[in-house]
């Protein structure tokens, strides 16, 4: 995977495969602590403890078509290579939490990537599922909820191309506002970032 947004999409696909209809996505950057964390919490069917332990093994999978499952192992590898770690907690029948931590300044940390495109892809993959996205730096926070967007859209489907392409741009503007200047790969736009000023 080239960047973190692609990992995020991959993990969200797991949540959808687990029949989640509510998925919370959190991206938190704290430059002072040199820590970037990605978080996906779903209300899917969850995994047994034994399955959670095996989830980062590339030669373990629950699907029947093939003997490998690389999504979580790749994310585990990438976070470890960037001085972080991967955490998975799951309760059967309740849901799963996947958290990947990275050192912001680590040379092997993948860039954040196109978060907007990941969310539009997730909406197309699971249009009925509600996504809550929280972007956070040390001082600022932005929340985007597809449930609210659907409510605002009324009878217009969230999957219409106009809505999705707008949403991608809107989300990426939010990413720039929160992470501009906080993550090295995202430029600070005028008035966008406040972490450095305070």
């Amino acid at each position, binding site marked *: 995977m080239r960047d973190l947004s692609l990992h995020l*999409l991959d993990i969200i696909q797991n949540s959808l495969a687990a029949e989640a209809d509510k998925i919370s996505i959190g991206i938190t950057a704290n430059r002072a602590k040199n820590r970037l964390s990605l978080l996906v919490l779903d209300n899917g069917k969850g995994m047994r403890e034994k399955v959670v332990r095996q989830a980062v093994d590339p030669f373990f999978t629950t699907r029947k078509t093939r003997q490998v499952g690389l999504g979580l192992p790749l994310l585990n590898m990438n976070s470890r290579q960037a001085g972080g770690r991967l955490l998975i907690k799951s309760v059967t029948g309740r849901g799963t939490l996947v958290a990947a931590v990275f050192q912001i300044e680590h040379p092997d940390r993948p860039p954040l990537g196109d978060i907007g495109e*990941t969310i539009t892809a997730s909406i197309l993959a699971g249009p009925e599922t509600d996504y809550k996205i929280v972007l956070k730096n040390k001082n600022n926070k932005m929340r985007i909820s597809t449930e609210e967007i659907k409510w605002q859209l009324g009878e217009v489907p969230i999957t219409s*191309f106009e809505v999705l392409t707008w949403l991608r741009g*809107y989300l990426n503007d939010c990413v720039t506002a929160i992470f501009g200047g906080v993550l090295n790969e995202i430029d600070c736009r005028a008035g966008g970032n406040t972490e450095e000023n305070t």
Partner: protein
Amino acid sequence: MKSIAELEEIRKKTLEQIGLRKSSGKGKRIVVGMATCGIAAGARPVMNAFLEELKKRNIHDVQVTLTGCIGVCRLEPIVEVYNEDGSKVTYVKMTPQKAARVVAEHIVNGRVCSDYTITAAEKE
């Protein structure tokens, strides 16, 4: 910066177009493989190219959906186009540029881009 208030504009605009769409009946369906293999091979920008291209051409009776692994990971990104009659064309090793051509030729004009199909790739 884009604001959430723009959503109201988009809602109104889209609503008008939905009204026009109803007469055109059932359309084609584009299915993009978006499992780990597809994502790693670049399926997400391909999906986005389809969205952008369909939006640009004001096409509303086509549905874009995602699916898991289609089974031939080495040929990802894979895109299946279902025609109105239920027949299916499988495009392999897709790119955003190829996606634009599939929209122009297959979706709009009904001509299959045979050089991008799985049959063409398997002959190589």
